[in-house]
């Protein structure tokens, strides 16, 4: 399963292997630079009466193909972190690098696939037309769009709903469309901002498994914001535990439970041990 590409995927926007850190004039072994690197990143908002320190001195490195969860309570700046990485907002101070380049370059190269808490689909477009939206923007070859979108819908078992409008789909279906919309043009980095938090428990579990399957097949680098401890441990290689006021990283846990993961794993002592550890870290 791993590595097989979706049908109708013309390797468009394939960015190739990331440039390894080549530090000139430094003869020693090349330092493995992380795929996404944040150094001393801070973010302050100026609201009407006071300054809000949304993030304070965040250091984080994410490797290529890694699945990292950002876990924390409301107001810890985890959503802001995604927006900083994807160049939607600039940091107040600090440096962010994507493959050694600033986020603006990565955004211009359309390397980010964004999924929000709400599906944020266009109500006047059908499911397949919603997935086509980014393909129109990135000038994906017209003759391949249809096949690409159908393959994506098929991968989340929604092919027979391709001509349905968002209001005709359930919450879980809409979110599945939103996820494959973010994958449509083969962006190497998938950014998800609490994508499942509005869904019921059962749908949520299903979509987590869907997501893991897509992720392992398409080999994305994934950043996943959540406030659910078990969701973070279930999905991620590493869990970045954050705390609020000001938002900062408390600890980074590396559960790295064996993959592929399944429902049964949720009852294993290993899984419970990590969720307990994450909970204690959040509380402390």
């Amino acid at each position, binding site marked *: 399963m791993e590595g097989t590409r979706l049908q109708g995927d013309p390797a468009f926007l394939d960015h190739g292997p990331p440039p390894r850190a080549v530090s000139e004039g430094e003869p020693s072994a090349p330092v493995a630079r992380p795929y996404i690197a944040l150094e001393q990143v801070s973010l302050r908002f100026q609201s009407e009466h006071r300054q809000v320190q949304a993030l304070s001195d965040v250091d984080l490195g994410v490797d290529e193909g890694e699945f990292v969860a950002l876990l924390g309570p409301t107001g810890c700046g985890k959503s802001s972190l995604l927006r900083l990485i994807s160049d*939607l907002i600039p940091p107040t101070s600090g440096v962010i690098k994507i493959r050694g380049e600033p986020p603006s370059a990565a955004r211009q190269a359309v390397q980010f696939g964004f999924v929000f808490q709400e599906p*944020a689909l*266009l*109500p006047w477009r059908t499911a397949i037309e919603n997935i086509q939206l980014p393909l129109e*923007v990135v000038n994906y070859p017209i003759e391949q769009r249809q096949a690409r979108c159908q393959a994506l819908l098929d991968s989340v078992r929604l092919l027979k709903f391709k001509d349905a409008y*968002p209001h005709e789909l359930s919450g879980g279906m809409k979110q599945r469309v939103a996820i494959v919309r973010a994958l449509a*043009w083969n962006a190497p980095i998938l950014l998800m901002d609490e994508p499942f938090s509005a869904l019921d428990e059962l749908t949520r579990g299903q979509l987590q498994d869907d997501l893991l399957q897509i992720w392992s097949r398409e080999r994305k680098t994934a950043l996943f914001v959540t406030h659910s401890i078990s969701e973070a441990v279930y999905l991620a290689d590493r869990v970045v535990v954050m705390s609020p006021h000001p938002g900062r990283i408390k600890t980074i846990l590396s559960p790295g439970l064996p993959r592929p993961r399944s429902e049964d794993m949720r009852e294993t002592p290993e899984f419970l041990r990590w969720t307990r550890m994450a909970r204690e870290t959040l509380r402390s």
Partner: protein
Amino acid sequence: MSAPIADKAPSRLRDDILPPFLILAVVLGFWELSVKAFDLPPWLLPAPSDVAARFIKTTTLWYHTGLTVIEALAGFLISAVSGVLLSAGIAHSRFLERGVFPYVIVSNAIPIIAIIPLLTIWFGFGIAPKIMICAIISFFPIVTNTTRGLKSADRRVIEFMHSINATRSEILVKVQLPSALPFIFASFKIAASLALVGAVVAEFYSSDNGLGYLIITSATQLRTDLLFVCIVVLAMLGVASFMLFGYLERKASRGEQIEETR
């Protein structure tokens, strides 16, 4: 969401069309009988049958009506195009919003009647000043509603578009304008009837044709039956434009409304 299915098949004719016509028939019948019973003079209140007869006999009616419609339509179209364009500018530029919006409000605050003499001095007694009046009077609702509609676009979708490096015009065309369509058609509904009012009022002041002129002359000559004919024609024009844009508005917002009621 919908009413339970009754045994009898729903009938549009019976449920939607028949009731207002029944009421109309009752009112007209009562009117006709009252005029006949109290022997009211036709200059005071003509019977509906007299009005209908006048409607058929007045051969110049369609000429006057056509002229008024052309004025209102031309003014409305000018406002629709320039208003939507200006709104697109306002939605994209803080400077434009702050600089222009006060004057949009001023354009609404000045009573339109006060401008008619001025425009007549400048542009004469022809069709041009009437078109301008129609354009000015319908401008405000179009700009305010379209601007609101453009801003109503889903913030997340716009953020998504930014994250894939979409240009401003792509965001405008693919996200903001479609989101604004229900608002735009709603404003057209208001603007079209205002344009009609503008045309008639402008014709009151300076004209020798058009429905406004016909109203003024029939009033001064106490031809009350013709006055009623003009009013009925204007009412029908207003209802027609209201129904057209109301239909487009519903069509454009169908998906969203259903989503909201879920």
